[in-house]
């Protein structure tokens, strides 16, 4: 059986994450994102590759969304309401709560401000969210009889999760975006050690190694403080969720410590509303933040006020969070137009802005003039601070996760092509795990684990758990020499316990395969055992046999017999390594191989004519087929053995 991963988005690029994985007859879509850099059909994944007929309900078992960012969920309302998918959709509680805000915010920007044709309506978002089943972390969710999924904390944004999916014996993890180091308001990603056939990981920072985030946070705070202390205004363009709350927690904390009274504004009611969600979802934040919920909920921002349009031109310093991010239009751009010409003011921008946005233009170089559109140009004299903290894991984190999970195969998505190639090489060479970085619309096929199920009898289980001790004498190298001197010299006993499960597997038509212990088989079949053994009466030349015979009156007495065996025993102990020779007085035994002195001159097993019968002592050997090799080895030793009596 195979796992087929069709990468519909985020293949060798960042944007519109969407991977469709087929395993053991189930088909799961992980994420359904959009690419913000495009405004044509390219913004959505090419859904026609999932099903030509457009019958997505039968083509997909379920959709799993990792977090509320648009490049992971942006295409979902389009896919469910326009394309018509109506099957189950899974996401965590915070994602389900926050995604509609994110989608609605985006829709408004697109339609009302940019005047684009509507891709989906508000009703579409509402209807789409009705299909969503919320899941808790680590909760084992049975999608259907065979497929179950489980979310693990990913730490990227509130509610971000990695998803584990299992069908039969085949299992995989899709990480979505994750962060391996805790930050101020979110914890680090956490996952169990799982047995995986496939790991699909993001690779935004495939080659970067980042130091602590605290330094960069301090830089941001210093820049803000310097600006407001100088009477300037700080504009922080953000999307409604995630970054706004993270930065606001930073600022609140800083304001408290520095006893600052300068107002912090939120541009729209929307973000204030989002804080309400954050308050209820505080258990999804970092340990430090959630411990304080009872005395003071960290998302109960004390210094934050609502901003009114009339305040844009008001004098005095302030900090303003305004939507949308990237200065892609709307209110944040409007404020920017007013504040950009003054060098007292400050604009902060995230590490990544979609191409074509004002934010993107500001970041590339240090322009003093910006073309807002064909007719208007804007003087930009304000300072620009680039936020360099991003809640993605760095290369070390990715390597750590891959190493921790040790999957049989890795697929990288959500990164830049050349960097991904480097990381792919590292995973392959350092960890020895095959790795792929498919481009969009490519399919990667790998083999999957499968176990054969059988019922096993108790006797079989008992026998396989039975210790299988093997003993050999050795002096342990762990012990120091002095230690040995202190005690009497005592050879240590080396005991090995290599257990093997040996049994018989039976298959009958229309019945489940069954494992029995060997002894149970005949009982079940109602048959009688027919033992097949080998026998061989082996002569050993004895040079001074006559002498012995004379003293003991031609009859070998019991003690003599024993002494012959004793001689043989000594010889064999020297020659056979690791074998346990058991001495039962009258006979020796090695596994099933049995040796005794043969006094029957007409022993039928004296197959070989010996020239000199008088000078030989005969040893009768029998064994079963299991020890065939061992038996012939012992016989060859005996053949070459020249017995020197006494």
């Amino acid at each position, binding site marked *: 059986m195979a796992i087929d991963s069709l990468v519909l988005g985020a293949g060798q690029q960042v944007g519109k994450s969407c991977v469709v994985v087929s395993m053991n007859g189930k088909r799961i879509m992980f994420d359904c994102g959009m690419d913000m850099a495009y405004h044509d059909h390219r913004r959505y994944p090419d859904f026609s590759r999932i099903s030509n007929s457009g019958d997505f309900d039968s083509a997909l078992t379920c959709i799993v969304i990792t977090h509320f960012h648009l490049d992971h969920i942006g295409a979902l309302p389009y896919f469910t309401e326009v394309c018509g998918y109506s099957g189950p959709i899974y996401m965590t509680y915070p994602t389900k709560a926050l995604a509609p805000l994110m989608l609605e915010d985006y829709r408004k920007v697109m339609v009302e401000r940019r005047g684009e044709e509507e891709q989906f309506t508000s009703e579409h978002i509402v209807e789409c969210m009705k299909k969503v089943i919320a899941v808790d972390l680590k909760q084992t969710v049975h999608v259907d009889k065979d497929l179950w999924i489980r979310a693990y904390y990913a730490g990227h944004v509130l509610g971000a999760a990695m998803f584990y999916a299992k069908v039969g014996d085949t299992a995989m993890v899709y990480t979505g975006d994750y962060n391996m180091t805790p930050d101020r308001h979110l914890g680090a990603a956490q996952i169990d050690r799982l047995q995986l056939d496939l790991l699909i990981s993001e690779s935004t920072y495939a080659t970067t190694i980042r130091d602590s985030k605290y330094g960069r946070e301090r830089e941001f705070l210093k820049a803000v403080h310097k600006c407001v202390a100088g009477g300037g205004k700080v504009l922080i363009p953000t999307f409604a969720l995630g970054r706004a709350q993270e930065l606001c927690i930073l600022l609140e904390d800083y304001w408290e410590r520095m006893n600052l009274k300068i107002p912090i504004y939120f541009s729209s009611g929307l973000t204030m509303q989002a804080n309400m969600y954050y308050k209820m979802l505080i258990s999804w934040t970092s340990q430090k933040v959630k411990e304080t919920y*009872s005395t003071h909920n960290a998302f109960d921002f004390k210094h934050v006020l609502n901003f009114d349009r009339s305040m844009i031109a008001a004098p005095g310093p302030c900090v303003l969070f305004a939507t949308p991010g990237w200065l892609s239009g709307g209110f944040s751009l409007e404020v920017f137009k007013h504040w950009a010409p003054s060098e007292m003011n400050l604009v902060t921008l995230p590490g990544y802005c979609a191409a074509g946005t004002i934010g993107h233009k500001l970041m590339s170089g240090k322009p003093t003039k910006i073309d807002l559109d064909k007719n208007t140009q804007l003087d930009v004299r304000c300072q620009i601070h680039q936020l360099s903290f991003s809640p993605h894991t760095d290369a070390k984190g990715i390597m750590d996760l891959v190493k921790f999970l040790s999957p049989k195969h890795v697929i990288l998505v959500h990164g830049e092509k050349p960097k991904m190639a480097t990381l792919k090489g590292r995973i392959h060479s350092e960890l020895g795990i095959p790795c792929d970085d498919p481009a969009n619309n490519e399919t990667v096929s790998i083999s999957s684990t499968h176990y*054969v199920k059988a019922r096993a009898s108790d006797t079989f289980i008992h026998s396989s758990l*039975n210790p299988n001790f093997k003993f050999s004498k050795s002096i342990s190298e762990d012990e120091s020499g002095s230690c040995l001197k202190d005690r009497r010299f005592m050879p240590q006993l080396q005991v090995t316990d290599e257990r093997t499960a040996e*049994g018989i597997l*039976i298959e009958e038509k229309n019945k489940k395969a069954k494992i029995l212990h060997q002894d149970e088989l005949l009982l079940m079949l109602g048959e009688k055992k027919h033992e097949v053994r080998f026998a061989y009466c082996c002569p050993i030349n004895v040079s001074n046999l006559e002498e012995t015979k004379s003293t003991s009156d031609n009859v070998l007495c019991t003690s003599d017999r024993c002494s012959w065996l004793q001689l043989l025993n000594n010889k064999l102990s020297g020659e056979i390594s690791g074998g346990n020779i058991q001495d039962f007085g009258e006979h020796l035994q090695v596994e099933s191989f049995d040796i005794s002195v043969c006094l029957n001159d007409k022993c039928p097993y004296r197959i070989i004519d010996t020239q000199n019968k008088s000078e030989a002592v005969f040893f009768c050997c029998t064994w079963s087929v299991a020890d065939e090799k061992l038996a012939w080895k012992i016989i060859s030793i005996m053949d070459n053995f020249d017995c020197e009596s006494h």
Partner: protein
Amino acid sequence: MLKGYNFLGQSINTGIRLSIAVLDFPKRQPVQWVPVVINNRCIVSKRYTFVLTEGGSHIQRQAQFQQLGLVNILAVARESDQYLQWQNFIPMKFTCLSRGGGFHFPPCHMVNVSGFRILFDCPMDLSALSIFSPVPTGFDAEVDVKVSDFQDSSSSSSESVARKRQKINKPLDVNDLIYAVPWYKTVNNLHLWNVSFIDIVLISSPMGMLGLPFLTRMKGFSAKIYVTEVTARLGQLMMEELVSMHMEFRQFYGPEGSSFPQWMSWEELELLPSALREVVLGKDRTELGAWVPLYSAADVTDCTQKVQTLRYAEETCYNGTLIIKAFSSGLEIGTCNWTINGPKRDVAFISNSIFLPAHAMKFDYRSLQSNDIVLYSDFSSLDAMENVEDDDGFSIPTTDSMSTLSTDNNNNWEELVESLLYTDDSLEEQEKLSYLCYCAIDSLKVGGSVLIPINRLGTLLQLLEQISASLESSTLKVPIYVISSIAEELLAYTNVIPEWLCKERQEKLFSGEPLFSHVELIKDKKLHVFPAVHSPKLLTNWQEPCIVFAPHWSLRLGPVVHFLRRWCGDPNSLLVLESTLDAELALLPFKPMAMKVLQCSFLSGIKLQKVQPLLKILQPKIVLLPEDLRQQTRFTNANSFSVIHYSEIASIRIPSLKDNSEVEISTDLALQFQWRNLKHENMTVTRLKGELSVYHGKQRLLSGSEQAKSSKIRPLLHWGSPDLEKLLNILSNIGINGSVEQCMGNGESEKACIVHVHEPKKALIEIGTSTIISAGDENLASKIFEAIDKVLEGI
């Protein structure tokens, strides 16, 4: 004999010293310690090598092992303090330690699954607190007298003893109560067990956690404790509250001595009125040992650090063998039922459960399906029955409605049953709450106050919403106070756990509203939360009439005592009590009571008529039911499961359902199989050799290290009787010829014969009930064997 064992399934690195404790079963006491060094890195569950540092030959040592008649061996890694168990095939056993009593005192059981001892819940009986007097108030001169009176009598003045003796049969008097720092009544039968032998503790509710610090502070306790995240938090809060309320007694009576308190001496106990004595000693007068002094705040902290928290439907694996999961039971926020899946046992444990609660996530019974054994531990319907005896307001539930259902066999059957399960319990509960609010408003209207002891979290949360709504509609401006050391945190906490709530509350999250309306009430200053009666802000804020929620429901501890003393003489005021409480005894210290008392009961489990439909859906093979339910439930013969009734302390051995367990065989091992067809109808067999490992509760056969060494696998076991002619034919085909000598077997009727082989070399084949091949060289012997193999059946 040495039996199988299983070392946690973890890899142990080089050089770790182990000591194998050889234990004498069943006493489980170490007889002898055998130090062992593991000297190569290995996965212990599969294979390991160790060195015995003591002398003596292996045979001697083996003999010693055998002499001890070991059934159970424990290996303990001393340095890492790892507890490794030689696992055994121990039959499943169930022992009910206590049937509990009501919502606040859940049942307690001990179950042995796959050799692991699991304790279900560790509650304590707080209703027994009623034998103690609440803390006497300094302002109350009368009470002062009582205390001194009591102290006199304790100095064994013969006169007072005589006086007391007379009282035994009289109606209870406030002076009969015990004036001392209270002790607490735990599960008596739990003390009969050695706590160090408990492997796992599963806590289903905060109430089931209250006795846990008694266990965790005991020496030798090392069990893994599993509890849901919310239960752990709520349980911790309840324990902390209990400790802080108990402090008031300590302050009044002074620190407790280490000795037994006076009231526990037999002389004093003999003098107790029979009603109180029964509470102390139990019906069979054996429960004195159950009384213990309360744990400290440090014990609580220590206890909460020892628990491992889970979310609903989170999978956790104990010792690589048992998969344990918690599923919502609906009783309270965070309460749960359990499933335990081992290689041979699938067990579901059902605690008190509510199908459609108004606050917590609903009873997730579907996740309990497909378990062979159901341990049914919901005694609530029995408690309800007991109440029915003295209350005419309820009708006795009948199972008649079921008889029609059980004969119904159509496809909609399950839907039908489900609709029955979801009948309007919640509506009924809603009506009770509305009635309660109605009574409260009535009292407020005439200038009385309303005192509601905090009983259940769910009731508190709903009452806050309902009463404030009623106040709103009645245009009364009356403040609501919640006075408890943990109230602020409790109320804040309930608003940050949407994942644990019912669908309706979760919808509030998705629409951005607070989960419970108390958030808004506090903001609007309609609800006031204070940690204690003497909080300065409370004194400035205080306003009567008012509604007060305060602990503790036993009416012996906490702020509620103060308010009850304040209002007990006011005929306009109202006290709301849970009906399971013995009101006569509970209100004794506050007599004469002019205050109105409203006793009401809320649903605290599965109703009797729903037991059978529920079990039908769960489809177990064996159900364990409380003995007391035997009379109440008549199970029709149509049931596919067998029922075992249990009663307190009697251990029940649960019959094994499968004599075989599931094993997964890895593909690479399966590829090595060499199938043989048998003469038996359509049967194919193959020998298999691998390594058995247990991973995450699953037994797996993996290809061992010595795989594929011998490419030619010879059958080792033969049966049938050889056809001589056929054998000779086969032999001659491969160039082996000889002559046949018939001879009689050793007196047996079976014919035996000898084949003397001349060509290519001399050899001999003896054929009878068994076959002996004798040849001078390996090759020939092997060829003959192959020929024999062809005329016999073998594997």
